[in-house]
């Protein structure tokens, strides 16, 4: 509860700050002038226009191809592209580097940054700059897409970031935050990068309504980043949908994790995280829905797990996780674990494999459901046993074990399974 208020507080305070800056911005704009850049204009080169601009000016770049790289924005200006001008870095260096506050970059197509193992060349880099808005840009064949470093209160909105490298080692992250605060990432599309969206040491950020698909490693990746929110995103066909590691107080709401199918594909991988909430997400057709590894006090409520190989893998090093009112439908394994669990709770979930009855008509099954099947335990211990998948023997064993449990963890059970699906 305490954390919740902290979150709200930070949200409110940051909004107020934003308003103050916005007021500043408008007052400065009174003297602002518009500087056009085009093939027939006074400025044919974007960098030249920036160099001659004053704080608050708006540089409008008309359509055309600009062979420039490492465009430096070190003063508060707006750089606006009209009819999608193209900045082609010709694989020489980065696209745009922003190091001043209150900069806006919008409406560009940025192509072909350099690609290297020493420097993380980005399409657009924001470095120690606050209140920067990067919006409506298309990035193609950039090593890294949009990178924010040591920055606060920025916005990354409506960008398309499309990688063209065909393998993981030559590909950077689509959107990357490093030691940032309070950044909003909204309505972006990221594909074919190493990680779609990557966070490290970044807090109070919101990831909303993005589509991240076909990235080599993770659709979304958190490392050491606390108090972040992500909601209404879609993660499709990634190596792994989202990986949340070494972080606290992450809220994961109403996201769709689809089709992260592959030999070792997770929809959501939680590693050493605590106090997170996972509510209203859809996990459909993933090899593994959610893996919880060393994760404590995670609240998993009203999610849909459908057609996954494993809906939930709950490692024995997890504690006090709760699974409440989720729907488990047509998964090969509902829950699997690698030990004897004592500290996680399942309640009022709907399990399509439940075969109990409800005599007192309270819509709750009268006998508990044990979501860990004997076969899932065997497979956990002897992975090779997977070759017996869908064998009649295995079905018979599972049925027998459910009737007379002897090997499956006795305490891991849903005492009050729902007879009907929960509303999600």
């Amino acid at each position, binding site marked *: 509860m305490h954390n919740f208020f902290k979150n709200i507080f930070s949200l409110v305070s940051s909004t107020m700050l934003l308003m103050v800056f916005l007021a500043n911005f408008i007052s400065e704009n009174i003297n602002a002038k518009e500087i056009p850049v085009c093939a027939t204009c006074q400025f044919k080169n974007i960098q030249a226009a920036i160099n001659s601009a004053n704080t608050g000016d708006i540089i409008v770049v008309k359509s055309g191809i600009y062979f420039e790289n490492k465009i430096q924005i070190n003063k508060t200006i707006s750089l606006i592209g009209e009819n999608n001008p193209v900045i082609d870095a010709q694989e020489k260096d980065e696209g745009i580097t922003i190091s001043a506050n209150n900069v806006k970059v919008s409406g560009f197509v940025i192509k072909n940054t350099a690609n290297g193992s020493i420097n993380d060349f980005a399409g657009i880099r924001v470095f120690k700059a606050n209140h920067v808005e990067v919006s409506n840009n298309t990035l193609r064949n950039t090593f890294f897409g949009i990178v924010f470093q040591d920055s606060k209160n920025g916005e990354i909105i409506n960008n398309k970031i499309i990688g063209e490298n065909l393998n993981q080692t030559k590909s950077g992250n689509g959107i990357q935050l490093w030691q940032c605060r309070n950044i909003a990432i909204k309505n972006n599309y990221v594909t074919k990068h190493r990680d779609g969206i990557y966070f490290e040491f970044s807090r109070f950020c919101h990831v909303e309504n993005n589509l991240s698909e076909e990235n080599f490693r993770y659709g979304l990746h958190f490392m050491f980043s606390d108090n972040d929110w992500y909601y209404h995103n879609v993660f499709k066909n990634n190596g792994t949908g989202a990986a949340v590691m070494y972080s606290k107080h992450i809220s994961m709401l109403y996201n769709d994790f689809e089709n992260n199918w592959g030999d070792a594909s997770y929809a959501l991988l939680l590693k050493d995280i605590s106090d997170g909430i996972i509510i209203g997400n859809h996990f459909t057709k993933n090899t593994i829905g959610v893996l919880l590894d060393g994760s404590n006090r995670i609240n998993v409520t009203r999610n849909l797990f459908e057609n996954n190989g494993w809906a939930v893998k709950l490692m024995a090093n997890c504690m006090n996780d709760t699974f409440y009112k989720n729907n488990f439908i047509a998964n090969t394994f509902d829950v699997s674990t690698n030990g004897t669990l004592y500290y996680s709770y399942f309640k009022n979930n709907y399990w399509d494999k439940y075969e109990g009855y409800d005599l007192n008509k309270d819509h709750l099954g009268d006998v508990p459901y044990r979501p860990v099947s004997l076969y899932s335990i*065997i497979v956990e211990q*002897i992975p*090779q046993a997977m*070759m*017996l998948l869908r064998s*009649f*023997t295995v079905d018979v*064993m599972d049925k027998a074990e459910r009737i007379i449990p002897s090997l499956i963890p006795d305490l891991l059970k849903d005492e009050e399974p729902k007879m009907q699906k929960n509303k999600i």
Partner: protein
Amino acid sequence: MLKLIKYVVYDILRNRILLGYTLLLLTVSLSLFNLEDDAAKATLSLTNLILIIIPLVSIIFSTIHFYNSYEFIELLVAQPLNRRTILLSQYFGVSISLFTAFFVGIGIPVLLYNASSTGLILLLSGMLLTQIFVSIAFWASVVTRDKAKGIGLSLMIWFYFSLIYDGLILFFLFSFNDFPLEKPILALTCLNPVDLGRILILLKMDISALMGFTGALYKDFFGSAFGLIFSIVVMSIWIIIPMLFAIRIFNRKNL
């Protein structure tokens, strides 16, 4: 021999049990495809049916047919006919009849609703399993004289391949968990036609990703074109060997 086969098929196709079997398969497959929105899911459910019911019905039906035809076979043996011809005509007669039942009951629905590569592999496996268990049934019928014993033996064989064998594999996996087991398991799979059929079908489905998770070699092997051909060859051996033994024994059998 073709003429003899014709008469045997004519006789069996009018058999009520075979008719019932066809209708059962047809009802189950049609209702699965109609109840399930996703044809792939229906196919998966159908796989379980095929792996259990097809071998069971094939082996029991063939065995009962053999014993019911015993006096007729005796009469045929007293005719100017080669014994091999007599046995093979019964064998092909039963096979063709069961094939027809399978094709009408499973084949047509699958082709209508899910004529994908998965569906085709399902049909292929079903047909191979039918043939394999007819062969085994003939072997079992020829080695035992008593009808009850013959049916008992057939049931045991089915039980062994459907249930016990995989239990033994599990036991084997538990016992030798510390050793590299990928190749032994490959070999063990070949020794059970039901497992082979199951693997063939599963590897054509999405669900095979679960298998790739732990048994890359296994998946790569059976998932490849070579693996497919290899499996078909091994299953063909499962058809031929029991039947060769059956013919050998029948040639010397005292009726």
